[in-house]
């Protein structure tokens, strides 16, 4: 294998196993090809971006609750860094739009996807299938590097003339095409966004190819498809989604880039008049083409965000109920169905673009159909609890909370599946609450479950349980404090992306007071993350030392030493049974590892 042919890598692998505080840490770890190091790189970078994206929203929440007032404490600092965007510490509408666009972009493409897919996938999948590494370790390294460059470009774009992208995370044309028409279109935030996206998508493509080949080719002897942990199934399906859905957006990004810098009109129709003047373009393009290409990625993307989360929850639930996952097979087939259906629902994001009855019927039907496999998976997770011996460890708390939170997100998706109802609810806060319930208290809670669950595998130390609970309970409370009132605002007709939070509209008056409530919830949610940050770093060095299988888990990753050395396993693993053989009748222990003869 390529990996063992590299002497530098072997050297580095040994160091990883024995020495963590090497002064050359950065130099050696930046260019590592070891899947575990890359997984940790992705994880740490992703968590930092996740927090950064969250902070952008905290700024927006000030503007929504106390619009037009200078930001306390941080205001003067931001006024120095962004004199045009935050004059006197007061946010301009342009900067608000930048924050909104970048919050979405960063959370999705630089936060959740890298953590859910790349970090957990890289770290856990090879261990769980009993492989020594990824099939293509160097492509894996290139994947992280492309991601990192994309991330840096996104960050730098804040300092471009005109500020970062402000056409929404969806970057709809023609707005995104004509924003910041500067003499040098290249160095504008909107252009940087497109270049950044090209890097990020490239990174995902490299990763997905690697995951697919690894899971298909490198499973240990005896690891049949139906013995594959649900988490690996979820990652495999996610990899296919990335492989097939991302290229259209990559192509579309390049096309929009050409619209901006090379004078093409892929997404610009004839006869655009901006500020009373005809825009000098060739025209003939279609703004709707961008939407189709974007959402052809965008909807599978939702399942890229949710499938790994479901995988993590399945692992944690089986382990902490001490019983097999109920309906494992049904869940696997549902996940496959989900993956397939996710490619044919995209236009439900475009219900108000002028859709005829037939096209609309098709997308409404597929959207309702896709709820079925989701319901089956959630039912499998719920019923897995029945008959269990449930221990509420910190990962289990997060995994347990995932279920009702994802449930709320799923249920509120039902009315939004219908074109007629969307006539009223389109782009209101009802929609915002709906998808945030899926990705924030849904997916992000599952990611936290994963961090707490696999932390001992990565470091050999446990995270502190008290700090974990201090992280969980306030987070659960405050995250609902943010998103629950959004349903009420949405029902009243308050729309998203309003710089003043709805103060211009009379219809928003009855629900305007919720803005301050939601903002305070958001800021307190931020405070609730401090125990996690403290716990994370403290536990790396001072956490309680544990053996290789502290959770008494069955899957293969727990048979490798913690942290696993280069090559992962001390002897090549052989799989003898299914992934969740907990509490087998007649067995003395309440778990039988997959690799136990």
């Amino acid at each position, binding site marked *: 294998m390529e990996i063992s042919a590299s002497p530098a890598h072997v050297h580095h692998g040994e160091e990883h196993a024995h020495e963590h505080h090497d002064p050359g840490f950065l130099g050696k770890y930046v260019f590592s090809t070891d899947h575990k190091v890359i997984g940790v790189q992705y994880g740490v970078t992703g968590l930092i971006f996740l927090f950064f994206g969250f902070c952008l929203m905290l700024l927006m929440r000030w503007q929504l609750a106390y619009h037009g007032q200078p930001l306390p404490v941080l205001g003067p600092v931001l006024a120095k860094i962004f004199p045009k965007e935050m004059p006197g510490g007061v946010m301009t509408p342009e900067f608000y739009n930048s924050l909104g666009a970048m919050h979405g972009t960063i959370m999705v493409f630089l936060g959740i996807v890298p953590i859910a897919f790349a970090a957990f996938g890289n770290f856990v999948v090879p261990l769980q299938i009993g492989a020594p590494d990824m099939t293509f370790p160097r492509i894996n390294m290139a994947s992280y590097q492309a991601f990192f460059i994309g991330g840096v470009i996104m960050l730098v774009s804040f300092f471009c003339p005109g500020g970062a992208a402000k056409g929404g995370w969806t970057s*709809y044309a023609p707005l995104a095409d004509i924003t910041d028409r500067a003499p040098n279109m290249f160095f504008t935030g909107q252009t940087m966004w497109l270049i950044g996206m090209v890097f990020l998508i490239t990174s995902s493509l490299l990763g997905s190819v690697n995951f697919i080949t690894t899971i298909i080719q490198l499973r240990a002897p005896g690891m049949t498809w139906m013995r594959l942990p649900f988490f690996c199934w979820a990652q495999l399906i996610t990899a296919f989604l990335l492989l097939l859905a991302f290229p259209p957006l990559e192509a579309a990004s390049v096309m929009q880039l050409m619209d901006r810098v090379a004078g093409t009109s892929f997404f610009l129709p004839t006869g655009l008049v901006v500020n*009373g003047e005809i825009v000098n373009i060739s025209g003939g393009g*279609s703004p709707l083409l961008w939407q189709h290409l974007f959402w052809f990625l965008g909807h599978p993307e939702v399942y890229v965000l949710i499938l790994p989360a479901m995988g993590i929850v399945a692992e944690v639930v089986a382990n902490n109920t*001490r019983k097999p996952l109920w309906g494992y097979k049904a869940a696997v087939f549902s996940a496959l169905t989900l993956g397939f259906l996710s490619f044919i629902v995209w236009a439900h994001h475009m219900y108000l*673009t002028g859709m005829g009855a037939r096209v609309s019927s098709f997308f409404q039907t597929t959207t309702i159909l896709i709820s079925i496999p989701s319901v089956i998976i959630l039912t499998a997770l719920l019923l897995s609890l029945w008959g269990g011996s449930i221990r509420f460890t910190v990962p289990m708390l997060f995994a347990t909370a995932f279920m009702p939170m994802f449930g709320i997100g799923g249920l509120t998706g039902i009315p939004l599946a*219908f074109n007629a*109802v969307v006539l009223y609810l389109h782009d209101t806060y009802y929609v915002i609450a709906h998808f945030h319930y899926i990705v924030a208290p849904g997916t992000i809670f599952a990611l936290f479950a994963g961090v707490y669950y696999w932390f001992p595998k990565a470091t050999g130390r446990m995270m502190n349980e008290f700090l974990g609970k201090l992280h969980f309970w306030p987070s659960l409370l405050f995250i609902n404090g943010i998103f629950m009132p959004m*349903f009420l605002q949405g029902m009243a007709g308050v*729309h998203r*992306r309003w710089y003043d939070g709805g103060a211009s509209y009379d219809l928003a008056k009855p629900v305007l007071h919720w803005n301050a409530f939601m903002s305070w919830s958001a800021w307190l949610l931020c405070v609730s993350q401090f125990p996690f940050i403290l716990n994370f770093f403290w536990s790396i060095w001072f956490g309680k030392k544990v053996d290789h299988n502290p959770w008494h888990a069955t899957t293969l990753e727990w048979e490798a030493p913690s942290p696993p050395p280069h090559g992962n396993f001390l002897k090549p693993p052989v799989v003898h049974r299914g992934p969740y053989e907990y509490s087998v009748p007649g067995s003395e222990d309440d778990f039988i590892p997959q690799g136990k003869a």
Partner: protein
Amino acid sequence: MLNHLLGMPQSASEHGFLIDHMLEVCHWFMLALFVGWSTFFVFTLFRFHESRNPRADYHGVKTKASTHIEFMVVLIEAVLLLGFALPLWAKRVTQFPKDADAQVVKVTGQQFTWIFHYAGPDGIFGKQDLNLISTSNDVGMDPKDPAGKDDIVARNELHLLVNKPVILEIGSKDVIHSLSLQAMFIGQDAIPGTITPIWFKPIRTGQYEIICGQLCGLGHYGMRAMMFVDSPEDYAAWLKDNAPAGAPPAPQKP
């Protein structure tokens, strides 16, 4: 009832009631599922806590109840889809009233204003030309066309006659906007390069806000217009007050 509790306003259009009704059914369905689901969830977490159940049961749930419940869920979703959603939408996009029976208004979005263009008393829209668009000629009216003499072009004010179907032909000059008439339970993206019609029938007189429902730039949050649903008397008075100078006198309509 649930919708009202959640703060949804009453609709002012004929079809709005049906959408309200459908959303109401959805919300009851969601509530029932959520309450049932949560009860089971909380009970299970309590009943099977490790202190109450030290050894897990390898097999867990053995009944088929969940399959039946899932089937019921699918069935109800199918009813919502086939019985409500598809016919409702089909009616919106296939059963347009005839132009002659409706009040037709051309709606154009531009950063950050809504422009409403009425045919005037003659019922014929005047010719428009892209090259004539200027800050004083919002929709590029051709001054030479006699049919355009009585056209009314107004910014941010939409006047409609109550109980008469309305057809709005929606387009945009610059970026994508979305004409969102919350009170009428209807909306449509305003997409440059295309004209998309919608129709509805206002049934309650009053003043309602018009929202831009699609991010259109820095002034998006303030792209607000007003919709006036007038009684026939008020509507006639408005027409009279807004007739352009030099327009031929309005013919007496039956």
